[in-house]
C-alpha cells in the first residue's frame, strides 16, 4: 500500500531542533561574553588595589612631609627663641607636631583604603551592568569591546587637597609670635619697626 510521506512531521522535528539549537547558541554566546567581561576585569585584583592605595598615599605624602618639616622648624625656632627648646614644654610642643603628622599619615592610610574600596565598588557596579547587558544582547564581540571601553574609562577616586594640616598645632606659636611682634619693646619686633613701644606719639584732635 502506498503511504503518504510524513513531510510535515519531519519539518516540525527540524524546527524543534532549530529552536533548541538557537537557544543553545544564545547561552553559549552569553557565556562567551561573560568570559570576556571577566577577562577584562581580571586586572582589578588585590595587587591592583594595593598599588592604587600606595599611589593614593604617595600623592599626598610629599606635601605632608613638607608641611611637617616647616611646622617642626617653626616650632623649634620659636622654642629656641624663647629658650624653651630644652624644656618639657618644648618637648611637648614638638611632640604635638609629631602627633599631628602621624595622625595625618594614619588618616591618609585609612582614606587610601576607603578610596580603594570605593573604586572597587565602581568597578563591581560597572561589571554588573555589563553582565546585564551581556544577557540581554548575547553578543560576545560587542560585549568584549564594551568591557574594554568601560574598564579603561573607569575613573578612580582622587585624593582631595591636603590643606594646612598643622594650622591648629602651630596656632599657639603663631599667636605668640604675633603678639610678641606688636608688644612694647619686644625682642621679636623687626629692626625696621620704628615704634619703641614706649610710645611718644599723641593723638591730635
Amino acid at each position, binding site marked *: *500500500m502506498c*503511504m*503518504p510521506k*510524513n513531510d*510535515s*512531521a*519531519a519539518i*516540525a*522535528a527540524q*524546527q*524543534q531542533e532549530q*529552536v*533548541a539549537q538557537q*537557544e543553545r547558541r*544564545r*547561552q553559549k554566546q*552569553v*557565556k562567551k561574553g*561573560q568570559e570576556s567581561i571577566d577577562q577584562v576585569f581580571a586586572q582589578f585584583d588585590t595587587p591592583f588595589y594595593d598599588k592604587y*592605595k*600606595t599611589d593614593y*598615599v604617595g600623592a599626598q*605624602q610629599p606635601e605632608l*612631609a613638607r608641611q611637617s618639616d616647616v611646622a617642626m*622648624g617653626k616650632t*623649634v625656632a620659636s622654642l*629656641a627663641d624663647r629658650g624653651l*627648646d*630644652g624644656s*618639657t614644654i*618644648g*618637648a*611637648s610642643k*614638638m*611632640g*604635638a607636631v*609629631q*602627633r*599631628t*603628622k*602621624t*595622625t595625618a*599619615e*594614619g*588618616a*591618609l*592610610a*585609612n582614606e*587610601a*583604603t*576607603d578610596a580603594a*574600596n570605593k573604586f*572597587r*565598588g565602581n568597578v*563591581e557596579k560597572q*561589571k*554588573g551592568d555589563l*553582565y*546585564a547587558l551581556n*544577557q540581554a544582547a548575547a553578543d560576545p564581540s560587542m560585549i568584549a569591546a564594551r568591557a574594554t571601553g568601560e574598564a579603561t574609562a573607569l575613573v578612580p577616586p582622587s585624593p582631595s587637597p591636603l590643606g594646612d594640616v598643622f594650622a591648629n598645632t602651630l596656632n599657639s606659636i603663631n599667636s605668640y609670635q604675633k603678639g610678641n611682634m606688636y608688644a612694647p619693646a619686644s625682642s621679636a619686633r623687626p629692626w625696621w619697626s620704628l615704634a619703641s613701644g614706649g610710645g611718644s606719639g599723641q593723638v591730635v584732635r
Partner: protein
Amino acid sequence: MCDPITGLAIASTAASVGGGLYSSYEANNNAQSEMLARNNVLNSFLQKQTAHRKNNEAALTKRVEDMAPQANQQKIDNAVAGRGATIDATTSAPPSDVPLTGSAPKVVKDTVAGALSKAFGEATDAAKAKAKVSGYGDMMLDNQFGIGDTERQIGTTNNFARGEAALLPSQQELAGFAARKPSTGIGQIIQAAGQVGSMYAGSQAGRPGVVAAPGAMPAWQAPTGYRPPAGTLWGI
C-alpha cells in the same frame, strides 16, 4: 447455514465495526505517541531546570557559607591587618636625631626623643583603632561584593532557565506534531467496504429470486410482495 446475502450482510457489519475499531486504535496510538513526545520534551526541560536550580543552590550556599560568623570575623581580621599594614607603611617614625642644636644636653635630647616617640606611638595606635572600626565596614563591603557576584551568577543561570521555559510550549507542540503519524487508512477502507457491503446486501434482500435461507426472515417481517417459498419454515 445462511444464504450469501445474509453472509454478506454479516461480513459487512463485521468489517464496518472492525474498520472503526482499527481507526480508533490508530488514533489512540497516535495520541499516545504524541503525548510521549510532549512528555519527553517536558522531562528534558525539567532535568535542565533541576540542573539550573542545583547550580543556583550551590552558588547561594557558597555565598551564605562565606558570610558565616567565623568567615566574617576572618574578613574583619584581614581588613584590620591590611589597614594596619597600610598605616605602618604610611606613617614615618620620628628621626633618631632630634631637631635640636648639637650642644643640647643628652638628657634634653632624650626627653624630646621620648616625647616624639610617644606622640608617634599614640597617633599610630589611634589610627589603628580607627582601622579596627573600619574593618567592620570593610567586611560588609566585601560581603556586598560577594553577593553581587553571586547575584550575577544566579542571574545568568536564571536567564538560561527563562529562555528554556519560554521555548517549552512551542517545543512540546513541535515534538507532538513530529510524533504524529498520518492514518494508514486501512481502518477507514475496511469500514467503507463494510458499509458498501451492507448497502449491497440490503438492496439485494427483497429482490425476486433471492431465496432467503430457511428461517432467515418471518413472513410478517418480509418486504411487501415477498413470498417465502413453500416448504420453508415461514412459507408453510
